């Protein structure tokens, strides 16, 4: 059985009200959105592969708080949470999941292939590990163009075994590229636990031979994520090169919707859910510190449910793409 992050008593200093409530709201949006996506999948409205982010919400929420305008985000196929964290419209994301015209890729990408140039979200990549050199290339362009922007390249513990990850590490360190590698270690590469797939299970050490600093972070605590993220982003932005953050996190749902769930025990999931949930943890802190009441939070819950319902309705009402879309976007026209 995989050993998940040890639940910690969260005794962070006095939280700022606006930020605490924003974190709560953002994480809850991802949670409710993903639950609804799971439901729509069960109803046959979403097809193909669908990888839910439930349980990992603190990672993207905390990291996004470290970014500034123009910073880029790129990830693999478990990407819905990242898109919502990047402030992409839940309607557009859900409608892409249902393969409709109103989706971010007008129905041509699906769950694993969504992008928003406007929000600096660069995908959404279906090949395990591919986003790591791509994200490193975004960092290369920032440096080349003299921008002080940073790219965040997210990948999972499974992708951490891909060769191209280390090819990218080498070049990023060699050329001091402003990239932060965020390893979302949710303990399982599909159904293979970290102990069974990694010779070095402390993944933050994977940069040592490239002279890339790394650290382990409690990825179930949004404040711990933000604190580590700020340090890493500052490092990259100041020209010191790449940084690795290993987020110890956990996904409650299967690898995808077709996961047989034979590789881990129900009790393991329940244990983390009931003792180390990122949203419940923050909720406890908010109430304990008197930032908001149960009632206030319930009002937020209601608001979020309305947003998600609206997104789901939109995703079903939006028409399928016009048949002419089959032939568009293969090549861009050449300017005369």
């Amino acid at each position, binding site marked *: 059985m995989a050993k998940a992050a040890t639940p910690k008593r969260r005794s962070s200093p006095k939280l700022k009200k606006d930020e605490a409530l924003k974190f709560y709201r953002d994480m809850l949006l991802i949670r409710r959105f993903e639950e609804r996506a799971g439901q729509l999948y069960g109803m046959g409205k979403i097809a193909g592969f669908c990888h839910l982010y439930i349980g990992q919400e603190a990672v993207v929420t905390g990291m996004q708080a470290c970014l500034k305008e123009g910073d*880029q985000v*790129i990830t693999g196929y478990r990407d819905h949470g990242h898109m919502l964290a990047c402030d992409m419209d839940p309607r557009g994301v859900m409608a892409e999941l249902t393969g409709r015209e109103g*989706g*971010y*890729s*007008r*129905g*041509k*990408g*699906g769950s694993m*292939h*969504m*992008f*928003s*140039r406007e929000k600096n979200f*660069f*995908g*959404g*990549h*279906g*090949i395990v590990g*591919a986003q*790591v*050199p*791509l*994200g*490193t*290339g*975004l*960092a*290369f*362009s*920032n440096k*080349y*163009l003299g921008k002080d922007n940073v*790219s965040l390249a997210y990948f999972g513990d499974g992708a951490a075994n891909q*060769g*191209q990850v280390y*090819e*990218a590490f*080498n*070049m990023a360190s*060699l050329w001091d590229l402003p990239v932060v590698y965020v390893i979302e270690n949710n303990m399982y590469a599909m159904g293979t636990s970290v102990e069974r797939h990694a010779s070095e299970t402390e993944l933050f050490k994977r940069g040592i031979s490239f002279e890339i600093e790394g650290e382990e972070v409690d990825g179930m605590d949004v404040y711990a994520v933000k604190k580590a993220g700020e340090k890493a982003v500052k490092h990259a932005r100041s020209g010191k090169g790449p940084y690795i953050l290993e987020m110890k996190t956990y996904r409650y749902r299967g690898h995808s919707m077709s996961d047989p769930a034979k590789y881990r025990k129900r009790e393991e999931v329940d244990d983390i859910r009931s003792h180390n949930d990122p949203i419940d943890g923050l909720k406890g802190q908010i109430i304990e510190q008197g930032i908001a009441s149960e009632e206030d939070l319930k009002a937020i819950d209601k608001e979020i449910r309305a947003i998600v319902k609206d997104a789901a309705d939109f995703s079903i009402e939006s028409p399928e793409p016009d048949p002419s879309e089959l032939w*568009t*976007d*293969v*090549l*861009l*026209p*050449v*300017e005369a």
Partner: protein
Amino acid sequence: MAVDILMPALSPTMEEGTLAKWLKGEGDKVEAGDVIAEIETDKATMEVEAVDEGTLAKILIPEGTEGVKVNAVIAVLTEDGEDAGSVSVSTEAEVEKVTPVAEPEVLEAQAASDAPAGPILTNPDIPEGTTYTKTVLRDALRDAMAEEMRRDETVFVMGEEVAEYQGAYKVTRELLQEFGARRVVDTPITEHGFAGLGVGAAFGGLRPIVEFMTFNFAMQAIDHIINSAAKTLYMSGGQMGCPIVFRGPNAAAARVGAQHSQDYAAWYGHVPGLKVVAPWDAASAKALLKSAIRDPNPVVFLEHELLYGLEFDVPDLEDYTLPIGKAAVIREGTDVTLVGYSRMVGFSMEAADKLAEQGISAEVIDLRSIRPLDMETIIESVKKTNRLVTAEEGWKHMGVGGEIAAGVTEHAFDYLDAPPLRVTQKDVPLPYAGNLEALSLPSADDVVAAAKAVCEGM
């Protein structure tokens, strides 16, 4: 007994070089391993070491001599006690007597791709009275990159040995000096990684030129070329343009064996979202590379090592480009259409000469682009000649010729007087042995034979 010291080959494709410097003089004692001379080609410089010991009795090729053939006798070594004075040879006579080292079959094949004497007049846009400069292909490609880098600050070149080494095949020679290390980037040997990094940089607003030392190594990177570069525009509903050029030598070199000798035109030509260019002559290669760099889409640009050193007429025009996706009729004829790309265009031109001697008038089409494929030009030609021969260095199975033949059968079936024939590499991994390699690769004579076969009973 006197020992002949021969002009060595620096690379599998070298035929001649410059004897740059003698480091030993006549009468000097030489031990095995001593550096006695330096030789140069347009690609590299190398020291010549003595293999035997003795006295350097006679230098036959003075330093500074250019065009010294591989295996020419450049000096004579006498063993100790031997009278140096007994060795006397005429330098000039010796140079002329030189026989090349390569297998005759290979040499014949190489000679067949010699460049034409005059400009390949194929583009009506070239104004009358335009002057031309003889330029080798590698320099034309370099000039194309340099011109585009001057024009657009976001264009940069990256790859193995492109900067300090000046290019493994010297195609990026002197770019580092002009543009600096920021824009001419030496990478580690890490094709998968730097291809992906290049695609990411293109997403980030740059126009990368990614050089693969050869396309054989790009198989390590093909996931990024196809899954990341070619498909992302579509998957993003048109948001994620990827202006990138993947370039480098493709297909066979000389005697480098199966893993270093493969034609990838059919592989990349298969993929929507890519453009694939495979030029032959220096003028069109330069013009097409400039277009590829400006193209907002990913372009796979297939060059040919055995053409790099060939000289062609390149028009002296400030900004000459050609459209990607347009083939060119580079020789007009009436009896048979020969369609090829890259090095096979040279063979087709040579075949056309030979066919003319036998009373067959061949039209030659330089495909230039594999994708988009200019079927219109081919079909127009076949409607006139009624016969088709395709020529490629790739394998026949699922190849470019098969696609062309299918297109012609589909759109011009009634015009065909004979089934189209395909000239290709034999259906084996490329062998190393000189005779087997020559048997495996398509030649001008193969094109002649195929053309005669489709013209039988004409």
